[in-house]
């Protein structure tokens, strides 16, 4: 029993005699592999080989494979004779003899320049495909909406109310808190900088116009994209993974009508509501800061508000809100339906959903700014 060494080699004329020992198991596989490779390199001049396995106490698939690899070196020259292997270990070795005969297919590689160019190309077509996907979803939702108009009883009222609870009602506290803080911060900055010109009163104009026209709706849209858009994508995505969407389709339901239309409609309703509440909270926050930090009495603040804002400013913000809801809903649902079988894909699409919907919300806001400027609102 050669306990110390896993594999010993010696030459008898042109015959190589190998003796195995110890544990030929997974735990010793690395050590054994280097020994096997060493023997294979040194022993190319041997005509025939015999491997004595009597000293081996433990033997598993790792050992069996390495023995097989060693024996294959001489398979052309009549093969290696293996002696002293117990019966059940012999079975294991037989199992290994068919293994790894064909080369594994190489994984695709290439020149880095080509890969980089290919990535740019794929990215560009990806943008086009995304836009096409959103347009497709917009169309499908539109068709489903028109179809529902003809038979309004089929509208998923319960589902819509449930979604409204999650997307709108449950979002109220966090939206109020964040817009309240943003309103306060804008007021503080306005008062601080306008004070230099003695124009503290105009900080109220700043707060009111900025909040009502732009910031209120943007903050709310970004919050909703992160909060509800991501959950739509994850929900629909995991339904895709578990074939629930396919199940719906085979039962004769249109997934767009059942799953997507209520969600998108709910967002279209929720965003104006949340925008209104958020704007009020921001104005309140601005007023509080103006009182505590700027020393402006609430009466003056409200009087100034009345002068500064008109219904137009309010309308500009509120008109934008449902469109932003529509964009968030469409992006979230499109991305959700793109989820493939893996957990990784779910994560990727959820990230993509939030990033794309925030980006599109800001682009849309820019387009609205141009539009309102040109019609003089």
């Amino acid at each position, binding site marked *: 029993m050669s306990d110390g060494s896993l594999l010993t080699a010696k030459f008898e004329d042109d015959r190589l005699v190998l003796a195995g020992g110890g544990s030929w*198991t*997974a*735990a010793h*596989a*690395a050590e054994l*592999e280097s020994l096997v490779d060493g023997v294979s390199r040194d022993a190319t001049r041997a005509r025939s080989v015999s491997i004595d396995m009597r000293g081996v106490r*433990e033997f*598993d*698939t*790792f050992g069996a*494979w*390495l023995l097989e*690899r060693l024996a294959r070196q001489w398979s052309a020259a009549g093969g290696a004779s293996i002696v002293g292997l117990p019966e*059940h270990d012999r*079975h*294991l070795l037989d*199992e*290994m003899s*068919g*293994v*790894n005969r*064909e*080369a*594994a*297919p190489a*994984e695709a590689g290439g020149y880095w320049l080509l890969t980089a160019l290919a990535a740019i190309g794929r990215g560009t077509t990806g943008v086009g495909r995304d836009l096409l996907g959103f347009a497709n979803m917009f169309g499908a939702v539109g068709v489903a909406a028109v179809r529902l108009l003809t038979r309004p009883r089929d509208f998923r009222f319960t589902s819509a109310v449930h979604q409204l609870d999650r997307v709108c009602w449950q979002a109220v506290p966090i939206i109020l808190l964040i817009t309240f803080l943003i309103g306060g911060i804008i007021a503080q900055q306005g008062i601080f900088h306008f004070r230099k010109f003695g124009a503290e009163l105009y900080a109220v104009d700043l707060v009111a116009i900025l909040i009502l026209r732009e910031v209120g709706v943007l903050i709310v849209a970004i919050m909703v994209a992160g909060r509800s858009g991501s959950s739509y994508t994850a929900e629909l995505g995991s339904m895709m993974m578990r074939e629930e969407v396919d199940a719906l389709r085979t039962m004769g339901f249109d997934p767009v009508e059942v799953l997507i239309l209520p969600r998108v409609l709910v967002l279209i309703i929720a965003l104006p509501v949340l925008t209104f509440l958020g704007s009020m909270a921001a104005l309140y926050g601005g007023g509080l800061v103006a009182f505590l930090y700027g020393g402006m009495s609430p009466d003056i603040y409200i009087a100034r508000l009345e002068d500064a804002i008109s219904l137009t400013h309010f309308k500009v913000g509120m008109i934008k809100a449902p469109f932003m809801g529509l964009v968030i809903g469409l992006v979230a649902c499109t991305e959700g339906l793109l989820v*493939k*079988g*893996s*957990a*990784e*894909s779910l994560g990727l699409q959820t990230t993509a959903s939030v990033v794309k919907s925030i980006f599109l919300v800001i682009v849309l806001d820019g387009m609205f700014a141009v539009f309102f400027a040109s019609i003089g609102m």
Partner: protein
Amino acid sequence: MREQSKPVISIRDLVVGFGEATVLDHLSLDVRAGEIMGVVGASGSGKSVLLRTIIGLLPKREGTIEVLGVDLDRASEDERRALERRWGVLFQQGALFSSLTVRQNVQFPMRENLELSSRLLDEMALAKLEMVGLTAADANKFPSELSGGMTKRAALARALALDPEIVFLDEPTSGLDPISAGDFDALIKTLQRTLGLTVFMVTHDLESLYTVCDRIAALADGRIVAVGPMSTMLECEHPWVRTYFQGKRGGMLTDRIGQLVTEAP
């Protein structure tokens, strides 16, 4: 390594429950080295709970579980980890990591536990995959591209990655067509012989029980009501066991196999 005397898994007075409900009630069971133990029971009788408790995924209320001579309660963190390398688990849905290819799935336990060259890692992964009947072409596929049977095979290859002494199988043939299920049973039997495995298998499949299991444990009312080879099951008086093995579906097979069982010594 292959002594017959001491049970490989020894469960004593195991109690497991969730909230008010008690699922396993003072259950005791021994699994001997080198045997294929099949656990049967009605849906919801706690078969999977038993398996998950043994491998430490569910907490138990009372009782002791000893696996390979190690008491799971007294084992330190390191002992536990060492023990976990000596068993492999095949989950019902395969539980392959969806972001890794089949090859990487099989290599995962090897890579984490052994210091192997990448050549040997690749060769061993392919060897394991070929042992379970997959080809080199399947190795680079992702789990979502596999059929149900291939997923089970790939998951079995991963369970066998470190040459475990015990393999736990949770409903290995569920969701497979009868031919694939039969092939899978044969595969388990072959691997068990060549690798000298102890197999602990939870199943619903009467065919598997007849063809591969050395002993069967019937689980009902939270405890083991009968243990033994097929002949013991057929003679058992417990109402659920009677219905299961003598019922409409069981009966057909029983007639066929019953003869085989009585012929065998």
